[in-house]
């Protein structure tokens, strides 16, 4: 800085020198001018008077006040050049007229001193008086200044004194300074003369010559205009000479140790502090204003706290809280542990990777210390991209569906809560040679009947697996189906083997029940004998209607009471709930359609064929069941299940499960009893188990495909005590389901898979062929192709 100052000073000096040099430099030019001046001198007297007057007035005005000046300027519109004069004066007050200026200013200021002090009183922000002193002119007030050799030495007298003289004053050498030439004569001359470079049209008041600017001055002006540094050869970017730097010099400027005063507290400061402390203690300085007045004011004033009841407001709807970022880890550190630093390979891989593919946006870098951390090179880029984001991607609050997909699923109870259901094999019934085709638990739940490929029907003790009764119904044909007659009053087993249906009373029950059973079966003989006419009529109508016959002696001894020769192989028997009717279905494709479905009346020993023609579409009928409460017969062929109202002889409903080949179906035992509609389960050879809600749709409510092979049999738990159903499949397994049907029409059935029961061996591509439920318990029996039956509980 001292250097700068010095240069400034130097500059001032040089400038002075230059100004001094100006007359010399402009000598040649000025010669003509001078000549002009001289010639002008004579006839410029009168005309000049006004000008000089005005000049003096102007100067006075300056010292007076700005306002007057402005007015004056407005007034003095007569000569525009006048303004130019004033600017010149303004421009160089320090250089050209310092003595005049100061001499002129001093008397005025002294006058003012008498009238008013040298400060103004203003109100500051607190309302206190504030004394604002006039700025002290930093100029030295001395009258000594560089004496201009060409300068006028007339002193501080008005130039008008010289109006009648040809000169306007004297220079320092006592020579008259002649009034430069002025006037029209000169004008003509001037017009002829080229305006020299540097002509200003002004008159230098000190010399009286026209003021012309030298080449250097013009250059200077240009530089000033162009905001350049006017000084020639000045280098603003000189290398900084550092005297005191952070770098430790080998040879320090001073080897003197730090003086002690640097370390001891300043006595002077302590003194001053003590002074203040003393003043505070004595009460001369009051740290706080006495609050008394204000308190009184406060009491008088009633203040209202507008925000007293202000609660926490909810965020603005568009407020989106900034995402919470994880705290920076070691990798973000400027000085991470070495294990976080990438090696060359990683660095290269990172650099070569596409910026979008990079796992991190940065590479951990070790800078050693915080000082050495450079500026963030992507700062601008990042800000720019952020702006682009804000501009191009306005924030829109999207109403996202905030739903847990789990909650959309129906609430299924866990299998543990749905106990009891069969879980383990409790007994194995061995005895059949070949497959066991059919299985049935008797209505009392004590006996189990099975029929198998060895042509026998057997009755077992359910719990222990003890075979109690066996009968050979056919020598080579299998017993296709065995079914107990419902009702506990009698114990009658219907079994279909080869072309016949046998009705038997197994000798395992007490004499009373046995007698009742025999009576049920024998009643028909009498009916048939006493009323031959209707049978004849039936025979006339349909010659195919079979007559029930008494079995052969051996069979009679074994317990068979009646035989119905159907002439075709019946694959399905289903009893009506009351035990008086049962329907047989001969599903063989060679069976004529008119005799495929037969309804047998036990009390009348009557067999009827209700359908004369084949049901359209879907091949031969497969199986049939009576509705548990209504007089409706459900008949399934390969594709559809049709419900016929027997009393009105109408087709009520067609169910299309969508399966290719229906194997079996069952009707929910509480169907249509309370309020709920009919529910059906259908098993199909294409591995599907279908649940139908007949009220809901013709199509299945639920399709369960859990088996790997064809489903052979499906069965609801009878009686509706347990909401269970099961299916049997050729993959050797049974599956137990919970299927709860509520009385509420609005709620759907809940179906929960409970248990897969495995145990039957697959024999010849066949697994489990039939299943049945215990009438009361959650026990289940299954007949397998491996010749065993199993009890599951």
């Amino acid at each position, binding site marked *: 800085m001292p250097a700068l100052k010095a240069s400034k000073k130097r500059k001032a000096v040089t400038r002075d020198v230059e100004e001094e040099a100006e007359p010399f430099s402009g000598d040649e030019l000025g010669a003509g001018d001078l000549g002009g001046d001289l010639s002008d001198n004579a006839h410029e007297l009168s005309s000049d008077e006004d000008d000089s007057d005005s000049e003096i007035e102007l100067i006075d005005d300056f010292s007076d006040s700005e306002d007057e000046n402005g007015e004056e300027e407005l007034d003095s519109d007569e000569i525009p050049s006048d303004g130019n004069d004033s600017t010149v004066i303004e421009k160089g007050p320090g250089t050209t007229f310092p003595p005049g200026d100061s001499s002129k200013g001093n008397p005025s200021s002294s006058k003012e001193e008498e009238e008013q002090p040298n400060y103004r009183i203003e109100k500051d922000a607190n309302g206190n008086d504030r004394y604002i002193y006039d700025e002290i002119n930093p100029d030295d007030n001395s009258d000594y200044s560089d004496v201009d050799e060409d300068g006028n030495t007339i002193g501080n007298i008005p130039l008008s004194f010289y109006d009648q003289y040809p000169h306007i004053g004297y220079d320092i050498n006592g020579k008259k300074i002649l009034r430069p030439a002025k006037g029209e004569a000169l004008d003509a001359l001037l017009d002829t003369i080229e305006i020299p470079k540097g002509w200003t049209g002004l008159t230098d008041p000190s010399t009286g010559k026209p003021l012309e600017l030298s080449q250097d001055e013009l250059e200077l002006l240009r530089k000033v205009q162009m905001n350049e540094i006017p000084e020639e050869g000045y280098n603003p970017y000189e290398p900084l000479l550092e005297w005191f730097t952070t770098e430790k010099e080998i040879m320090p400027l001073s080897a003197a140790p730090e003086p002690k005063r640097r370390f001891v507290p300043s006595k002077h400061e302590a003194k001053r502090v003590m002074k203040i402390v003393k003043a505070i203690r004595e009460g001369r300085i009051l740290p706080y204003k006495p609050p008394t007045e204000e308190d009184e004011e406060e009491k008088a004033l009633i203040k209202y706290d507008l925000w007293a009841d202000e609660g926490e407001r909810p965020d603005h709807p568009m407020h989106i809280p900034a995402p919470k970022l994880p705290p920076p880890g070691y990798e973000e550190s400027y000085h991470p542990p070495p294990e976080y630093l990438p090696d060359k390979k990683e660095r290269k891989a990172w650099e070569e990777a596409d910026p979008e593919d990079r796992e991190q946006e940065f590479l951990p870098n070790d800078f050693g210390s915080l000082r050495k951390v450079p500026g963030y090179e992507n700062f601008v880029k990042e800000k720019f991209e952020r702006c682009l984001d804000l501009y191009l991607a306005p924030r829109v609050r999207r109403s996202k569906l905030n739903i847990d997909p789990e909650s959309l699923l129906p609430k299924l109870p866990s299998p543990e809560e749905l106990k009891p259901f069969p879980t383990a094999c409790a007994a194995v019934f061995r005895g059949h040679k070949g497959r066991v085709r059919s299985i049935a638990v008797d209505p009392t739940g*004590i006996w189990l009947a099975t029929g198998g490929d060895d042509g026998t029907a057997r009755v077992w003790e359910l719990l222990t697996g003890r075979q109690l009764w066996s009968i050979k119904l056919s020598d080579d044909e299998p017993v296709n189906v065995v079914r107990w007659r419902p009702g506990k009053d009698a114990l009658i087993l219907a079994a279909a083997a080869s072309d016949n249906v046998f009705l038997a009373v197994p000798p395992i029950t007490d004499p009373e029940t046995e007698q009742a059973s025999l009576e049920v079966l024998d009643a028909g003989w009498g009916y048939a004998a006493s009323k031959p006419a209707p049978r004849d009529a039936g025979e006339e109508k349909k010659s195919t209607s079979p007559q029930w016959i008494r079995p052969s002696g051996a069979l009679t001894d074994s317990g068979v009471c009646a035989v119905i020769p159907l002439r075709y192989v019946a694959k399905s028997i289903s009893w009506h709930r009351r035990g008086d009717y049962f329907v047989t279905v001969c599903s063989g494709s060679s069976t004529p359609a008119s005799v495929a479905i037969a309804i047998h009346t036990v009390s009348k020993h009557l067999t009827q064929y209700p359908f004369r023609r084949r049901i359209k579409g879907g091949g031969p009928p497969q199986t049939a069941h009576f509705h548990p409460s209504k007089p409706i017969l459900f008949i399934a062929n390969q594709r559809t299940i049709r419900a016929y109202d027997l009393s009105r002889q109408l087709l009520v409903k067609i169910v299309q499960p969508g399966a290719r080949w229906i194997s079996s179906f069952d009707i929910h035992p509480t169907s249509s009893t309370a309020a709920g509609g009919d529910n059906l389960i259908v098993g199909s050879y294409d591995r599907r188990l279908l649940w139908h809600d007949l009220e809901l749709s013709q199509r299945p409510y639920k399709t369960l495909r859990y088996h790997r092979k064809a489903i052979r049999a499906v069965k609801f738990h009878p009686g509706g005590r347990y909401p269970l159903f099961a299916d049997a499949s050729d993959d050797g397994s049974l599956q137990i389901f919970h299927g709860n049907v509520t009385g509420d029409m609005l709620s759907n059935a809940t179906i929960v898979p409970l248990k897969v029961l495995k145990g039957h061996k697959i024999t010849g591509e066949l697994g489990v062929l039939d299943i049945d439920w215990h009438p009361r318990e959650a026990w289940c029996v299954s007949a397998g192709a491996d010749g065993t039956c199993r009890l599951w509980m």
Partner: protein
Amino acid sequence: MNLKLPLTPQTNGLKMNNGQDLATGSHQAAQRQVRVQLTSQHEELALPDNTGPILVPTGLRRYALSTLVNNLLGNDKPIPFEFLINGAFLRTSIDEYLTANGISSETTLEIEYVRALIPPLHIASFEHDDWVSAVDVLSASSLASADSSSRSQHQERILSGSYDGLLRVWNMSSQVIAMSPSPTDGGHTSSIKAAKFVSPNSIVSAGLDRTVRLWKYSESRDGFSGKIAPQLELYGHKSGINSLAIHAPSNRILSSSADHSVGFWSTKKSDAPAAPETLLPSAGSRMSKRRKLNTPVSVSQRGPLALLSSHTAPVSAAIFDANDSTVGYSASWDHSLRTWDLVTANLVDTRITSHSLLSLEHLPDHHLLATGTSARHITLIDPRASATTISAMTLRGHTNAVVTLARDPNSTYGLVSGSHDGTCRIWDLRATKTDKGAAVGDSVYSISRRSLEEDSKTNSKRVGGEGVKVFSVCWDREVGLLSAGEDKRIQVNRGDVLSSS
């Protein structure tokens, strides 16, 4: 007086049978010792009166404690003991017990010791022609001979009822002494499901032919031949009879049948009312007629004193109250356990459980009824009206229906169960643990069928107990534990201590 346990070599005056066990036990918790007071209910086993609390290391287990007691008693032949703290068996070390129950080792532990149950070993197997459904024992200590002390000690007899409809009486050397007559000669026309000695001279049996039959049993002098002669046929049930219960002093029989009723019978011809005509075979069908034709023996036919019918499913078991012969209990497939007043034949109480009940036994000292269920466990039910909870305890372990139960003749806490899974399990009510707020017991021993071990080494686990189902168990103090099953045998198992005491 404090008796320091000899832990240090210099004080090791008492010779330990299993010193190293003690040493290792003390090693682990040498610092911790606990004062125990050993007591016994049995006088012959009790420690001398002057035996005060003993300081023992807490690391001891049952075996070490048993050795200690044997030493204190000075037994030549060590008797295995079980140790009871607060009515539950000590199954862990004392240390673990204290930790588990939060008991300070400063306190004096009251430990009761009882004879441990010796694992019942297989003694003999009695081969039959068909499945054996019922077994009973006639011995000096058995129920049937309780009133008639005329029999000598060494004439134990075993009665078996089989699915071929025959009763057999065996002696202990597995010889058949007597066999009931064939159906043509007045025997059972169908499988026998239950058979019991009423007295040394009479037998009762019942089965799928719906009759309860009383037989007169007589033996020759040498005891190697005998005769079972029909004495009385009791008709009344309409379906197979599942179980029989005898109360010999009052000559009463309880039978349970699949026709949902409990039959109450008298063994005396004079007491019993006439048989219902409709149920007699003569009133039956063509087949029964034919059978009746070739039955030369005419036996008196009587009816039930009462048929208790309020069950809605087959009744699986009916028993007398062990203390009060006027009270009967019955368990049924309809999940209920019913209490009957036999004098008025009225239903007193019904307890509904959640499973089919298949067997029943009374534990009079604990006022509990043990009942085996189809859900593979045994439920202990307090039949008293004051009991609030239905199930007092559950004994789990069987893998198939529990169809037969018998009391331990040596212990009021013991129980044996037979199941269709082919095992008999011995339970002790004190060996319990609490699981989910309910007491759950664990079996002490499990006895599998000998036939299974002999037959098939490879297929030792049968699905559904096929071929090895146990149908009946009987536990006698002298003879031991008998079980009959589908493997056509009666299996006799006996622990050593049973015979030695």
